[in-house]
């Protein structure tokens, strides 16, 4: 049964974390809707957390989990502020499409 797929190693978790991060990056780069952009950023943060937890388990050290807690705290703060900005933006410009917000572009 020894193979690439069966004994779950750190590599599997790292590949999964990298995939999650890349899907998030792709979402940030190609979507126009700001709400979905924020969701993609949450996906990226989760990809990082998967990595941290996998290393924490490998070394039997709880510090990786503490780092993940800080990342979750920052992600929650970021989501709250981001959505607040989004509501203010929608109230003023009546749009949430990222490429229509070009006030600073000339």
């Amino acid at each position, binding site marked *: 049964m020894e193979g690439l*797929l069966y*004994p*779950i*190693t*750190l*590599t599997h*978790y790292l*590949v*999964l974390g*990298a995939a*999650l991060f*890349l*899907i*998030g*990056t792709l*979402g940030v*780069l*190609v*979507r*126009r*809707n700001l*709400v*979905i952009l924020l*969701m*993609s950023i*949450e*996906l990226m943060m*989760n990809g990082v*957390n*998967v990595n941290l*937890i*996998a290393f*924490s*388990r*490998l070394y*039997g050290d*709880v*510090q990786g*989990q*503490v780092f*993940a807690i*800080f990342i*979750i*705290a*920052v992600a929650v*703060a970021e*989501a*709250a*502020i981001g*959505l607040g900005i*989004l*509501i*203010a933006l*929608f*109230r*003023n*410009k*009546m*749009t*949430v499409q990222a490429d229509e917000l070009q006030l600073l572009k000339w």
Partner: protein
Amino acid sequence: MLMDAVFFYSFALLTIGGAILTITRNNAVHSALSLIGSLIGVAGLFLLQKAEFLFAAQILLYIGGVTVLFLFVIMLVNLDEEAKFRQFSGQWVLALVAVLGVALLAVGGFARYWQQPTTRTEWAIAAKAPVATEGNTERIADVLFSEYLVPFEAASLLLIVAVIGAVLLARKREALDASEIPTEVRGEEV
């Protein structure tokens, strides 16, 4: 051992599938629901890695907090109209270059480590027994409130600032009426 692999692949499928659906759906509500699926998958991976506290935090904060916030905002800004618009920004070349570049880098790194025979046994984390005798939450609290006390306080400050900032940003401003802003500041679309 085998059950670990089965659970890992089911949660991985849930995570990746939910993530892909999140960034491809036109309707933002569907995206938010797919995001919930993806986050549940990540929470399952936390549980599989014996990180029970983070599992609970993930469910409570992300699924109970952040995604509900997302759903509230989606309802508030009324995205039904937006679902009919063009959904993708057309930055495909940039996106492909960025994603493929990082993916190649990651795959190359993994392949290099995979070829070394020692790492394959050393990195088999599912086989490792948890070293601690006390509970996961207790160990986290020990480290968090001794070694990481200052960052912990900084995080609480950050959250307070975020809460106040979010309320200030989202609040309706009666004083600043749109007609009082000069037209060149307002732009043509207001």
